[in-house]
């Protein structure tokens, strides 16, 4: 058993937010999914206050050894999530981490306060890769904003608070330190790297959302460097992720300073990838 912020986990492999829909997967694979659940904790996709339909198609582009996605955070909104999805996710055999995103500190506080009231939720992860409506800068890319949001949210919950750091910043270690000062219990990284593809033979962006986020083996070396940098800057537990496909890749992130490892894009290639990685991680 592993202790992560006071939560007991059977092994150190979880999922990256937005890379596994346990409700849809249960429809596809039936009860085998629950019996052989591959992750030691389940992280929900990002929940926002209002429902979002997501971005127009196309939403994907296969990159060299990776994937660019521009999904646009489709979700049912906070009340839809709490009423419809949470009871189903609570049937999973592992602790549940709910990922939320607001565009202001006030929105983040509202989301977190609602999660605080639900005993099914073991921990809360903040997606701070969202532009500040006034400055246009991602909240998570600016240490001062990030510290302020973390501090505001901290007052709303006693549950473990994880900040999902963005790699699209000048100094990820400074952002991690800001999250720590703001009162975070852990950080997770890396989120996807901002990326773009052109429609073949044209000067137009391929993705409906123009730019997207790059994931997969293409970003593994970046993830390793950023996890190591953050380990040098904070004492907080770290969830490391980025291009993990094998037990060896997971071990590298643990050696670089991560406490848990998340699997994302590799689950797209094999839904049971995380179970395979967890089985041979030590």
């Amino acid at each position, binding site marked *: 058993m592993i202790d992560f912020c006071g939560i007991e986990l059977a092994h150190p492999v979880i999922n990256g937010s937005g*890379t596994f829909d346990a409700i849809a997967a249960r429809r596809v694979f039936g009860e085998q999914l629950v019996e052989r659940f591959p992750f030691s904790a389940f992280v929900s996709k990002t929940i926002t206050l209002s429902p979002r339909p997501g971005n127009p198609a196309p939403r994907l582009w296969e990159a060299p050894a990776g994937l660019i996605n521009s999904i646009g955070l489709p979700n049912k909104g906070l009340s839809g999530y709490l009423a419809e999805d949470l009871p189903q996710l609570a049937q999973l055999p592992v602790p549940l981490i709910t990922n939320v995103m607001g565009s202001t500190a006030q929105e983040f506080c509202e989301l977190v306060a609602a999660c605080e009231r639900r005993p099914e939720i073991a921990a809360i992860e903040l997606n701070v890769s969202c532009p500040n409506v006034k400055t246009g800068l991602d909240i998570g890319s600016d240490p001062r904003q990030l510290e302020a949001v973390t501090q505001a949210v901290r007052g709303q919950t006693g549950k473990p608070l994880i900040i999902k750091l963005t790699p699209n910043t000048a100094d990820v270690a400074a952002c991690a330190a800001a999250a720590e000062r703001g009162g975070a219990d852990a950080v997770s990284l890396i989120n996807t790297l901002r990326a773009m593809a052109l429609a073949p033979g044209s000067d137009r962006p391929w993705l409906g959302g123009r730019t997207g986020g790059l994931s997969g083996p293409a970003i593994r070396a970046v993830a390793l460097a950023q996890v190591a940098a953050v380990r040098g800057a904070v004492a907080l537990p770290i969830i490391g992720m980025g291009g993990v496909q094998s037990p060896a890749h997971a071990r590298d992130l643990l050696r670089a300073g991560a406490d848990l490892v998340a699997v994302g894009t590799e689950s797209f290639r094999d839904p049971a990838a995380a179970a395979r990685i967890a089985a041979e991680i030590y």
Partner: protein
Amino acid sequence: MSFQQAGEHTPAPFCRRLLQVTANEKVGAYRLLWALDRDAPAPLPGQFAMIAAAQGWGAGVDERPFLPRAFSIARRREDGQCAFLIEDVGPGTARLCALSPGEGLWVLGPLGRGFTPAPAGRRTILVGGGIGIAPLMILQDAILGAGAAVGSGTAAGVGVRFGADATPGESASCVALLGFRGREHAHGASLLHEPQVATDDGSVGHRGLVTDLLERHLGDESPAVVRACGPPAMLESVRAICERRDIAAELALEAGMACGYGACYGCAVPRRGGGYLRVCVDGPVVDAAELERVS
């Protein structure tokens, strides 16, 4: 063979399986790739699988392919042999077309929702365009029953009986209308039973669109349902024709997808009335009435 709820799905084993390629047959511009899949449950017509070559997948020019590719399960035999119809149009399909017997193939599936059987007393009109004939092969196999010998391999190992009332081999209950670019692609017509063919260049069959053939058939008195798969423009035309004539139609959609099981949200298509449906879990077969248009 047990009856299963139509339009529903057969659950997939929760992991990708390493299969062995047993044959790779050239059919004009296409390849019919066979693999032995003993352990998987029988698919419903219209269900698909995510497939990837076990070796030589990635690490080529541009480090692609990386993700598995979605293909309709085009045919299935009782012994577990299943077939995928493939055309070489990019790095993934090029590698799949080059597979030899004995090589490994990763398969996840069967995935998605399949076709619904036609109500009793109604003909099924199959409308296929190009590579979109693939799910119509297994659907026709199911409708005609085990007795129908069609092109490459007879097939009856599908998980639902579509033609319970029909005499095996009776073709009146089902007509296949197929459209192709030209002669090389029209070889694909050999994979269906007694098809009527249209080609863009008139080299085989009717010169023009497969939807010309559809309009002609819908002029008949006998009630029918339409089951279609093909390029978006063809599907939109089928959808509009059926809507105008108030004929029930199911369309098998295609979309780029990373996972095939609802995880990536990449395969979204607009739903009538707003929002999106995911082709992988809400489809690939959808009631045409669910769509405002196919684009």
